[in-house]
């Protein structure tokens, strides 16, 4: 590991203190470690709060239960969106960025004081947003479409949070520069860091468009601006809202590669291909807010078609490539590890008992099959009209951001706790099941909301039976069934979420200490000495039959589902 040796030579600088990680061989600097800790802890706390709100929302949408009164439902739904999509995800992403720069490159963190200041701003913003929402005068959903107006505190809190996050992203970039100047690594940055750089670049664009739209909106709430154009607001708002989802994708794909590397010893099949796939996210995603505007008046069809696809869906292609190269790298690694029988021994004998691996692989599969396919269908100009603003939309993005991103982040936490907090995982028996309980619950809410949306049920809606409405309308019984199953899946996801939080908080506070000599990990990292062969295949002979079958199934599902929706569209009333 030339990385570490070089770092030891060059990385000593007054005022920094270091330790070597006994399990991974990584060199870890103390301020980087502290900032990863606080950001990860804040993330988990906001997940706990937001997840609880998610459960209450889902139980309210279960017609037989209808837990909350209407006013509370809309308030809690606003809080749910903000706490999970913004605060949980972004705090965790900042931890990931610091990990992918300082820890993986064996560097010190640039400007730790500024990083602390950024953290402070983010905490202030997040707490203030919850205050604004709970006061009850900011029930506008986290998208806050005008002319519905929230209190000034709501907009201000999001601005403060975004500025904090932006500063943290700059600390990440500065750390990359420090690592390069102090030559803590040799050659090009590792793939995981490259993926994190992608996430960081997109984050800058995103947070900038967030500021562009939220600052005038805030001035409007103060009465300094009289009018906000509703359509332009959506176009710019989704410039932030959509691109920020691409940060999540870049971050969780990096995590897939990282967990594959750390747990089974996966190497990218080809550095060039995997990096190119990340690069596509940057090139082709910036204006993809278009697919949120497909059912809006006032934009031309050609604008919609071009901006929803950039002619050839190259960002989708980026994800499809990772969808091959991530399982492919794992298959190749497992074959090196000696699991060579049949097409799938590498998968059946994979370390499913390790929650980091299980969470990662479930995240990969569900992100592709549920979130990915439904996302492309929703983002098709004409097909969007079939499900715009129905509960299909939350179904789709719980497939991406819950079954995909959140599950991947949870999986990563099972490595962060031992490596950064130096505490072993408590209750391994429980931890083993956690990704499955949460994953199946999250997959369930995604699929059942998609099902109900296909039957027309609206999103952000307190009463699908429309009891108090001026004109009655009765949704089909199947739609009620779907919302009931959604409620049951939500309970399962919530149980998985509670398990996660209990395990993580318990381990951090009371897990067996790993900084003692002789301490061992309950869930071991990849042990290179156990590899059966040091190289698997060559460029000419690499065989990945299992991955090819999985990718083939995926592609068949994709095509089938795509055309089923066109068929469904063709049976609607005619409109143009």
């Amino acid at each position, binding site marked *: 590991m030339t990385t570490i040796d070089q770092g030891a030579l060059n990385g000593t600088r007054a005022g920094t203190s270091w330790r070597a990680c006994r399990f991974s061989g990584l060199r870890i600097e103390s301020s980087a470690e502290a900032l990863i800790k606080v950001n990860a802890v804040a993330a988990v706390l906001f997940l706990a709060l937001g997840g609880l709100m998610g459960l209450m929302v889902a139980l309210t949408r279960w017609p037989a239960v209808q837990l909350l009164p209407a006013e509370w439902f809309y308030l809690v739904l606003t809080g749910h969106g903000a706490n999970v999509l913004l605060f949980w995800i972004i705090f965790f992403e900042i931890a990931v960025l610091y990990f992918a720069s300082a820890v993986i490159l064996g560097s010190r963190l640039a400007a730790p004081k500024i990083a602390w200041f950024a953290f402070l701003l983010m905490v202030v913003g997040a707490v203030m947003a919850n205050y604004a929402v709970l006061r009850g005068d900011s029930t506008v959903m986290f998208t806050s479409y005008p002319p519905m107006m929230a209190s000034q505190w709501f907009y201000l809190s999001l601005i403060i949070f975004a500025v904090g996050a932006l500063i943290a992203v700059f600390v990440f970039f500065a750390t990359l520069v420090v690592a390069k100047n102090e030559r803590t690594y040799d050659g090009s940055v590792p793939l995981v860091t490259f993926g994190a750089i992608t996430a960081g670049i997109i984050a800058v664009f995103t947070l900038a468009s967030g500021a562009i739209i939220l600052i005038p909106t805030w001035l409007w709430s103060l009465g300094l601006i009289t009018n906000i154009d509703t359509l332009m607001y959506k176009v710019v708002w989704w410039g932030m809202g959509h691109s920020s989802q691409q940060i999540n994708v870049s971050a969780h794909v990096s995590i897939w*590669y990282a967990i594959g590397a750390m747990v089974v010893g996966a190497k990218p099949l080809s550095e060039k291909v995997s990096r190119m796939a990340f690069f596509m996210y940057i090139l082709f995603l910036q204006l993809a807010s278009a697919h949120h505007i497909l059912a809006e008046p006032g934009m031309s069809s050609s604008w919609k078609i071009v901006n929803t696809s950039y002619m050839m869906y190259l960002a989708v292609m980026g994800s499809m490539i990772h969808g091959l190269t991530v399982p492919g790298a794992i298959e190749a690694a497992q074959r090196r590890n000696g699991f060579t029988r049949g097409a799938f021994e590498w998968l059946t004998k994979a370390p499913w008992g390790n929650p980091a691996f299980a969470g990662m692989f479930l995240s990969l599969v569900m992100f592709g099959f549920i979130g990915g396919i439904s996302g492309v269908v929703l983002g098709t100009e004409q097909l969007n*009209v079939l499900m715009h603003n129905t509960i299909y939309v939350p179904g789709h993005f719980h497939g991406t951001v819950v079954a995909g991103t959140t599950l991947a982040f949870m999986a990563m936490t099972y490595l962060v706790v031992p490596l950064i907090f130096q505490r072993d995982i408590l209750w391994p028996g429980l931890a083993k099941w956690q990704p499955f309980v949460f994953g199946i619950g999250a997959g369930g809410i995604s699929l059942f909301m998609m099902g109900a949306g296909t039957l027309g049920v609206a999103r952000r809606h307190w009463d699908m039976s429309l009891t108090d409405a001026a004109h009655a309308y009765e949704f089909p019984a199947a739609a009620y069934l779907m919302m009931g199953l959604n409620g049951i899946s939500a309970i399962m996801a919530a149980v998985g979420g509670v398990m996660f939080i209990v395990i993580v908080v318990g381990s951090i506070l009371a897990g067996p200490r790993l900084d003692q000599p002789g301490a061992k990990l309950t869930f071991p990292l990849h042990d290179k000495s156990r590899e059966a062969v040091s190289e698997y295949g060559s460029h000419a002979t690499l065989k990945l039959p299992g991955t090819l079958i999985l990718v083939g199934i995926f592609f068949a599902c994709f095509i089938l589902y795509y055309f089923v929706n066109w068929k469904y569209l063709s049976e609607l009333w005619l409109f143009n």
Partner: protein
Amino acid sequence: MAIHPPSNRLWWKEPIHGIELAWIVIAFLWGLFMFFFMIAWHFIGQQNLSNETYKIKPEVYAERVEAFAAEFQAVADDGTPLEEDGVPVVRPPVGGDAYILARLWEFWPILELKKGESYRIHLSSADWQHGFSLQPTNINISVHPGYEHIITLTPTESGSFGIVCNEFCGIGHHTMTGRIRIVD
């Protein structure tokens, strides 16, 4: 490993593996196909959202809808104006303009259209954003204040259809509905 610098310093010179190359080509062609299919549907399909939109002041739009409803108010055989749930039923001329006003919290008025005939449906809001969700047909369109959106709609089945608001529009959002009647 993915957490270490590439073992081959000249990684960008490595050849791309056959499996990866094949998948890249397939994904690329599929992406191109999906792009062209959206364009193609404008020619071969009969469900394309119109983009005919005009800026309009919400008050002006509301007046237009009132005038429209008064002019084409449906009357029963005995001459009394037709209503449902206290809302007038309006019969726009076949092929002509028909207006729907989205406002807190209803879609107003009720339209009665003929199956198989086309109408120019105008959609706009008097106040906040709303969501026009025609059920069980499942046609979903956003409605903005200040923008008058015109779609040419041809119903292909008869019966009574619900309009459910699916853009959050405040505390009465879940009470916001409307209706379209289609007669043979």
